[in-house]
């Protein structure tokens, strides 16, 4: 039962666990991690998706920071899965310092609406924020979406990418929306766009029934609506590593105690 991993100290002694011992240890470690059961994530190949890549980048930033403070793991924590992300900014590291927990959410919208009743191009996104553990309060939240180089006919122009909160939906007319944030980008530019949606996320955590999603629109500076795909915005049909996602930073609002057994 020898374990020859380089990350493990050579003097550790190992023996193979019996089945009931393994189950017992699994149960105890899950209890320490505060989980009622072992998670069963769906969809194969998810590890290469944008959100896990981004989160692993944050994890590595956190591990380095803890090592520098001299309070970290005695051994370098090697990931179970190989990734090569490069998404972290100084902005996120600041949020990290203050966070007890960071959580990324996958986009749940299966069908994107690319055209509204008023012939306005937009894309819709929805995230389920009801799965947040008890006692955690949102301190910051970001919507992240990847923009590739726009279609060649938009060369040398500036595009305005705006994100709206859907406030009310109607059957036969466009939804009522509220502008949250917008960015001006060169059509020829590519990279991640980050929108601050902290207030909206807090609102959705407290009022889940009012979570009607986000809308993203792209316009020229003179207000002409631009087709989302032509603008280079990557949606659900794009590569896994460039899928849009929401990331939220949490601070524990109180001391949580494990249940008495």
């Amino acid at each position: 039962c020898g374990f020859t991993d380089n990350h493990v100290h050579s003097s550790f002694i190992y023996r193979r666990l019996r089945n009931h011992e393994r189950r017992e240890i699994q149960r105890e470690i899950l209890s320490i991690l505060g989980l009622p059961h072992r998670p069963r994530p769906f969809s194969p190949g998810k590890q290469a998706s944008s959100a896990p890549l981004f989160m692993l980048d944050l994890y590595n930033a956190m591990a380095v920071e803890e090592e520098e403070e001299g309070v970290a793991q005695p051994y370098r924590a090697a990931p179970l899965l190989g990734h090569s992300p490069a998404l972290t900014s100084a902005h996120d590291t600041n949020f990290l310092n203050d966070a007890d927990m960071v959580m990324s959410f996958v986009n749940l919208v299966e069908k994107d609406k690319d055209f509204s009743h008023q012939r306005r191009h937009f894309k819709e996104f929805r995230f389920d924020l009801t799965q947040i553990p008890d006692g955690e309060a949102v301190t910051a939240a970001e919507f992240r979406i990847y923009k590739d180089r726009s279609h060649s006919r938009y060369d040398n122009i500036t595009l305005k990418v705006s994100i709206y909160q859907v406030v009310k939906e109607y059957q036969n007319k466009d939804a009522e929306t509220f502008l949250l944030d917008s960015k001006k980008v060169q059509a020829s530019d590519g990279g991640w766009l980050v929108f601050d949606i902290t207030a909206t996320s807090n609102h959705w955590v407290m009022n889940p029934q009012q979570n009607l999603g986000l809308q993203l629109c792209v316009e020229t500076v003179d207000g002409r609506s631009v087709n989302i795909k032509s603008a280079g915005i990557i949606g659900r049909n794009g590569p896994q590593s460039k899928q849009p996602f929401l990331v939220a930073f949490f601070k524990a609002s109180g001391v949580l105690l494990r249940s008495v057994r």
Partner: protein
Amino acid sequence: AAGGKKKNHNRNKSTNQQESSRAPKTGDYNTSEQKQACKKHELYVSFRDLGWQDWIIAPEGYAAFYCDGECSFPLNAHMNATNHAIVQTLVHLMFPDNVPKPCCAPTKLNAISVLYFDDSSNVILKKYRNMVVRSCGCH
């Protein structure tokens, strides 16, 4: 995975036998007994060995350590001891059958971060405090 679990049982047994047969004296602690003094022991919790690679992204495991050993006089020879541990030792020396020695337990604990998927394939990065023993001492 921890080393010397069986050994610990045997040692505890022999220690109890020793304690019942004679009361320890201050100058009676030789080198072989000092080896069993309260100290940090290696313990690696492997998420990989638990078969959790499909939901824990990182780390593959962590060195948790644990504290084990005798808290015998003089307490401060090898590690930190609380003031009360010294009093506890003195009382134990006076009433060895009724009062136990101080406990060998962590004095400093570190946090670890764990990155994992939930049932909905959302990803959670959470800091867990008091997971890694940094130092042991007598309490």
